């Protein structure tokens, strides 16, 4: 069994694409599309890596990440943040919230793959 990755993303098509190439790379991929219950889902799935979208229904990715980092067991969890808004401000906010890596949509699949391998080496 490979490592577990949780993708929290409200666009089902994007989730589908990520699932496609990560599972082929040996990841066990879980997906969730809402923000408000994201923390419970994380606690439940206990991923080795989190891919988190910023614009989510119910709660923004930044807020989720901030709360997550306050819990001791998740301080070291690698988190790759994705956003469709590519401004410098967004990058700063992601870093502040505790993101391990920040990537702008649209992304190249190979870039995601590379980042994931770096953040959570198998």
């Amino acid at each position, binding site marked *: 069994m490979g490592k577990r990755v949780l993708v929290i993303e409200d666009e089902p098509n994007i989730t589908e694409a990520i699932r496609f190439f990560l599972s082929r790379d040996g990841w066990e991929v879980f997906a969730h599309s809402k923000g408000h219950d994201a923390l419970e889902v994380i606690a439940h799935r206990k991923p080795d890596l989190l891919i988190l979208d910023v*614009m989510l229904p119910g709660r923004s990715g930044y807020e989720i990440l901030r709360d997550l980092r306050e819990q001791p067991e998740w301080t070291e969890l690698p988190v790759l943040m994705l956003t*469709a*808004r*590519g401004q410098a401000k967004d990058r700063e906010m992601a870093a502040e919230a505790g993101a391990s890596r920040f990537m702008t*949509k649209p*992304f190249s699949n190979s870039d995601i793959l590379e980042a994931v391998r770096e953040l959570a080496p198998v």
Partner: protein
Amino acid sequence: MQTLNVLIFVCTAYALFLFFVAFVAERAAMRGRGKWLRSSVVYTLSLSIYCTAWTFYGAVGYAARSGFEYVTIYLGPTLVMIGWWWLLRKLVRVGRTQRITSIADLVSSRFGKSNLLAVGVTILAVVGTTPYIALQLQSVTLSFEAFADSLNQQGEAANVSESTALWVAMGLALFTVLFGTRNLDANERHHGVVMAIAVEAVVKLMALLAVGIFVVWGLSGGVGDTLARIDASEIGKWQVDGGRWATLTFLSAAAFLCLPRMFQVMVVENSDEQHLRTASWAFPGYLLLMSLFVVPIAVMGLERLPASSNPDLFVLTLPLSEGQNALAIFSFIGGFSSATSMVIVAALALSTMVSNHIVMPLWLRANVGRASFSGDVRHVVLVARRVSIAGVVFLGYLYYRMSGGGTALAAIGLIAFAGMAQVLPVLMGGLFWRGATRVGALAGLTVGFGLWGYTLFLPSFGEGAFMPRTVLENGLLGFAWLRPQALFGIEGIDPLIHAVFWSLLLNAITFVTVSLASFPSPLERLQGAQFVNALQQTGSARSWSAGTAQTEDLMVMAQRILGASEALQFFRREAARQAGGNARPGKLPDPTPDFLQRLERELSGSVGAATAHAMVAQIVGGASVSVRELLAVADETAQMIEYSDRLKAQSLELSRTAEQLRAANEKLTSLSVQKDAFLSQISHELRTPMTSIRAFSEILRDTADVSREEKQKYSSIIHDESVRLTRLLDDLLDLSVLENGQVNLNLRDGTLREALDKAASAAATGDESPAITILRDPEQESITLHTDFDRLGQVFINLIANARKYCDAEQPELTVLVEHNDLGVQVDFIDNGSGIPSDAQDLIFEKFARVSPQRAGGAGLGLSICRQIMERLGGSIGFLPDTRGAHFRVTLPMVAPEHLAESKPLVTN
């Protein structure tokens, strides 16, 4: 001839003596000594100019002709002095505070400084006084003749009498000019003249008493004997005519108040209100003494002298016939005194009126702009005054010459009384009734004066002189009710009573009626208040010696105006200045003129110069506040009110502008925030489909073992996301086109139902939004419109799609209500959700605004596009915050305006 020469010598000496008295008094007054000049005794004696030659000689003649009726002439003033003391006080108070120079000035001043009124009263006074002056000249001449007659020197006497009047007139004019116009005192007081008159008052009283004593004890043989003779004579049998008594008493009382010369001595020359207190008992006493021996002299004259002799001269002829030359000369001097004092004061009073109200206004009008320096005007005033004096006296002389000196003295006196009495209603009204107006006064005076002239004055010259016989007998223009001595058909009354009754009655009625009907000017109102409330004001000046109390009052006032600390600082500074720098702390400055001036200047910065002056004057005393100052105060106040009103309006406008600016700024800020939000929103909206497209393109390109189903599915995703991208770009483009006004409308006829049907079905298909029930009434919707149905449909689709997206009810419902009239249609879309938060309601029509971004499917352009479309179609779209759910209302005209289709770009932000 010897006696005559002695008489001339005595006369001249007496005249010189009077000149000397006047000169000494004038000198004393100028040096500031002579407190005695202003004593109440002098004041009381000066009032005796009421007793003219007419009283001196005429009273006896009157008694000889009409018995005790002469008493009325003394009764009137006595009643006024004793009973109407308070009225005189008010008159004097007003005269002093308003600096009144004559009765014409008083009337004019009371009624808003109307010069027309002043001219009217002046003319009345001149017309009424001229015969009276003539009377005095005549009396002097007659008394002269009496001497001549008694000496049987008729040849020369005629000559003498011819020239006597002229010489006397010239002498009197000279005296009046010399002592009446020595200086233009602001108060118009003439100490020399008043003193001379007081001396003359004593002389004439003494003379009459001397003759009386001679008659009672010398001729008649004691009081008892005299009373017996009176009872036996015609006078004793004489009956009182009630109407005449009342009329004459009233007339003499009125004359006492209104005669110009009485006003001059009583009001203008008054230096202390308290003098009235003495005069109120002393003057009636004087009159009593003057009248005491009138009847005995008359009775004795009738008894001893031939029937042909003139009763008017009994006072003179009785001693003469008895060979008492010295007494006769004394008596002559008494009569001379009465005549001269009257002429002098009358000329003085009249000349003041004539020069102030007639000559000066004319001169000023003729010399507009040339009277540049005050010395010039001063000179002109003096000349005018002098010429007026000469003119008035000469007029009297002229009247004397023309009338021929035939009329009974008493008759002329009464006619003059009745003339001046016409001023009484206006005077009383002015002093006691605030409603009296200038127009009313003018009308009353005109009516009274006219009637007096018509019923009394003109007929007095005798038939045919000024009034044709036909008018007297048949009335003016043949109207019997216009007969001068039987107005309105009332006949058989004494002409005097008749004239007084009608002229004063109609005068008063006209005055009151016109006053009630007319509206006083502000100046009149102010003056009216000043006059009517004269006694309420603190007229008596506060003494300068009450220094500290005054300064404290000034301090309190200054604090109120300048503010407590500023006032204190100012007073400290002034105290230090006065003490030379080492003032005791807490010491207030003394109210020196210098200090008062600086205080006034300090105050005037806050309240205006006139107000400051008035306030300081009010506290310090001295002259009370003049009307001119009060008016200036009113002006300043008005200006300040206007100024503060303007300030208020300006500040209101400013705050309104500020409010608008704040609102605009808030909107701009909000718009700017929205724009930033949109940029990231549009970025998100564009990047999201692009992410899917790129990700799946890469999968298809890079992955060898993609199953056929997967290949199929991923290609569809790429296709759908491309469509989504295109739609977004279309919306942006559409909005841009609409905003720039470059849209081409495709107008055609169709029904509203058709548009709603299409929209409902279009909105129902497609995306993943939950279904919504649309409640419609097809009956209402069958309305034919001429509009762009594609664009209208776009709006309807948007509204229905929004309801589908945002309605949060369990079972979403959208109600469509249609109402219409001739002008247009109104379509309401109401859902049953929880509505739009009130803070978001203002923003929903702005571009890129989305109430809840997370749930939005579009870019937030829908409602912006709808608003643009509705504007193009000549209608509107709005949100109604009244119902629980979201309520949008679309209104549009039955026929879309063509011109709007190609209108200029609309700037929206």
